[in-house]
């Protein structure tokens, strides 16, 4: 753990992306198997430790330390692993395991000596090692290193193509011995099980006004950006696998997605709920997400279907190097033969020029079902990640409302010393009722202003929460609004963020909740 904790400490404190890649590349070059493989697993969030959780660690620590002092410390530090690593009061002589030994030890923890083993590990380690051990257990590293950056480092140290690494990435497993063999030119490219392996998805970039000047509308098509969850469906005979955009297997949540195919096929689409291909709100779709078992009531009320966008494999043939137009024809062809209640095809929108498309975007009547438009180049191959110049998203204008700042808590990670999570509300007669929370959208300058306001205008503290004077108006942008029984206000905002500070606006000009509902619901 000495080497690994040193690595993640350095990565955390190094601001430059290129230097981070150098550090990682250097580590992969100079670290033996399987240590570097386990490190890779941790860095990309692929190390699963089933016998121990972060809440268990918290419990162990709170048995040893006054819980109130722990809570105050955590509130201040803003990072659980860091709090524990700094507050742990015991020291013991001993050898610290390397990452492989540590991973194996944590994987094979037995219930009867779990507390003792963990206490021992924490006492033998120094602050930074302790921090790394807890990060290992909690999974989320939060050190400013994405999976993509880690893979870029793999590409750099091995001189391989990043896209080739991405293509096999979801088919290889920790500690990635075969992957490293190939990267070091000591073995063939690892074979992956195509029938069960998620393929990295192609994503769009937001479009800017400037982009339009350079884009020839004749080379582009448009379709709605449906408001569901993006999925990849792999079908092989009667076996169906559904993956989320990030590669999580969500097959179990959607047992009604069934189909029989002679040969392997991979589809890209938007999963939605609704009848006759008419999408219900995102709120309804949420009823179906993250459930261990699916009730027949849910299946009946919120049946799932998929709007197809693209096709990656047909009859086991990889189409990703074909042009979009070619893939689209194959997709339409396939869909014509496989019409049922499950698969709908995402319609192509006809438009003359960008101005005409903008009119379509503003005047459409199925407003609550989509998030705006997708614009795709007809010659694009299907590439992983967010390649520039191929696919664009053109989101709807957000809705906005001026609201009153009510409560604040400190942020986490790099914002841990700022009050950066805000609750805001509207008038409900003479009282202010909360309608949502926002923790981004502001600039660094605005954050400093908000933080200062909170510090100087706190009227009450509830644990980490500060209630402030109801005098500060902020403009909130949000994508949509739903009715909600769970919230006191009766509404839930989707994707709320702080658009700007309205220091100029007096609070008595803020809307009544009832007026807000009339206007937006």
């Amino acid at each position: 753990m000495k080497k690994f904790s040193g690595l993640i400490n350095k990565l955390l404190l190094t601001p430059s992306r290129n230097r981070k890649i150098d550090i990682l590349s250097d580590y992969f070059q100079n670290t033996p198997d399987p240590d570097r493989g386990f490190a890779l697993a941790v860095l990309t969030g692929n190390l699963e430790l089933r016998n121990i959780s972060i809440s268990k660690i918290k419990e162990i620590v709170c048995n040893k330390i006054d819980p109130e002092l722990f809570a105050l410390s955590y509130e201040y530090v803003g990072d659980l692993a860091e709090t524990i690593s700094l507050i742990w009061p015991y020291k013991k002589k001993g050898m610290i395991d390397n990452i492989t030994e540590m991973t194996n030890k944590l994987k094979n923890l037995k219930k009867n000596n779990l507390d003792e083993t963990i206490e021992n590990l924490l006492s033998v380690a120094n602050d930074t090692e302790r921090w790394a051990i807890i990060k290992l257990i909690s999974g989320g590293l939060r050190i400013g290193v994405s999976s993509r950056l880690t893979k870029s480092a793999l590409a750099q140290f091995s001189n391989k193509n990043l896209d080739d690494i991405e293509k096999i990435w979801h088919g290889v497993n920790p500690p990635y011995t075969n992957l490293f063999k190939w990267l070091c030119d000591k073995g063939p490219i690892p074979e992956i099980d195509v029938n069960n392996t998620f393929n990295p998805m192609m994503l769009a970039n937001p479009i800017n006004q400037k982009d339009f000047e350079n884009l020839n509308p004749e080379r582009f098509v448009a379709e709605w950006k449906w408001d569901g969850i993006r999925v990849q469906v792999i079908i092989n005979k009667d076996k169906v696998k559904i993956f989320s955009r990030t590669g999580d297997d969500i097959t179990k949540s959607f047992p009604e997605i069934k189909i029989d195919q002679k040969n392997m096929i991979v589809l890209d689409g938007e999963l939605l709920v609704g009848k006759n291909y008419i999408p219900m709100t995102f709120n309804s779709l949420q009823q179906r997400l993250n459930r261990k078992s699916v009730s027949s009531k849910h299946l009946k009320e919120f049946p799932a279907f998929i709007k197809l966008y693209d096709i990656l494999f047909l009859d086991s043939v990889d189409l990703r190097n074909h042009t979009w137009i070619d893939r689209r024809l194959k997709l339409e062809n396939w869909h014509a033969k496989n019409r049922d209640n499950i698969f709908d095809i995402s319609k192509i929108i006809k438009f003359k020029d960008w101005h005409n498309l903008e009119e379509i975007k503003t005047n459409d009547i199925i407003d609550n079902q989509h998030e705006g438009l997708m614009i795709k180049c007809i010659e694009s191959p299907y590439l992983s990640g967010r390649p520039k110049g191929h696919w664009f998203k053109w989101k709807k204008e957000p809705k906005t409302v001026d609201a009153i700042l009510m409560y604040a808590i400190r942020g986490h990670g790099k914002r841990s010393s700022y009050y950066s999570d805000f609750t805001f509300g509207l008038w409900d007669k003479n009282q202010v009722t909360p309608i949502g929370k926002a923790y981004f959208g502001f600039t660094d300058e605005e954050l400093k202003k908000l933080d200062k306001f909170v510090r100087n205008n706190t009227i009450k503290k509830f644990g980490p929460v500060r209630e402030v004077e109801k005098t500060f108006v902020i403009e909130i942008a949000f994508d949509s609004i739903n009715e909600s029984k769970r919230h006191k206000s009766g509404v839930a905002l989707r994707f709320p963020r702080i658009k700007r500070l309205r220091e100029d606006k007096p609070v008595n000009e803020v809307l009544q909740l009832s007026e807000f509902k009339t206007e937006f619901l």
Partner: protein
Amino acid sequence: MNMKWIDKNLHIIPINTHIDPYKPVENAIITHGHADHAKPGHKNVLATKETIEIMKIRYGENCAENFQELRLNQTLKIDEVSITFFPAGHILGSVQVLAELKGEKINFTGDYKTSKDKTCKRFEPVKCNTLVTEATFGLPVFQHPEEKLEINKLLTSLKLFPERPHIIGVYALGKAQRVLSLLRQQGYDKEIFIHGSLDKLCNYYQKNEIFLGKISKINLTNKKNFNGEIILAPPSAIKNVWARKFEDPIISQASGWMSIKQRAKQSLVELPLIISDHADWNELTDYIKYTEAENVYVTHGREDAIVHWCKQNKIQGLALSLSGRDDENEL
């Protein structure tokens, strides 16, 4: 407050004297020269010789109408109140102020640390009935490491990156001189470069026979190559254009806050050095126990945790949350 003769603003009522007042007052006792404790504009100031001289360097000769010196461990009687200064070990000239009335003792710590520091007199513990303490690092996550280890981190980095200038963020008063002194103690004998704003106070420390070695003010016009050199500058200078004259520098900062990695990251510090001039959690709680005080008032810092700790240890604790203390910047 259940003491009748002082109030929440650290005002000693019978002699109309404030300790470290935030606004100009008639009579002020100043514990040390940091800006959030020593303000200009008071009528009468009572402080150590060093604190008075530091105030004059920073604010000018006439920053108070009258100055009166009091030596360490000597008692000054003002009416029926006795005032005694004890070293606080925080920076040059820093003291704790013990006030005594009819056998009741109240000790105001100002800012303090109990560990050794060659740039100032070592802290002396004092027993009292009521302790008025700081709590800048009043959370159990703050357990400062040995300074030597931190200085070694810097020396190792200099060896690893001889092509990069090492800029260390330090406050002009106290921290700058402490880091210089620690570097010399670890055997670093090369010339060390300083930002112009540190010059006067470094000179003042040297005049007081504190060894800082060879230091040179950085001249902006001079095109010297600073690769592999140590440069000390106030944190604000590192954030502005001044720092652009150094090519690919390693940004470091010497502060007790640097034990929190996320905080170091926020300030874009690549090489955090945990060097504090304030007591850590163990020093704070040990000292409270030592004083045998029945009442503890916390002036500023992480007061909630110290008050909670007092309660558990059957000591009456209260947070004063004084305004004007620099809460997030360790001075």
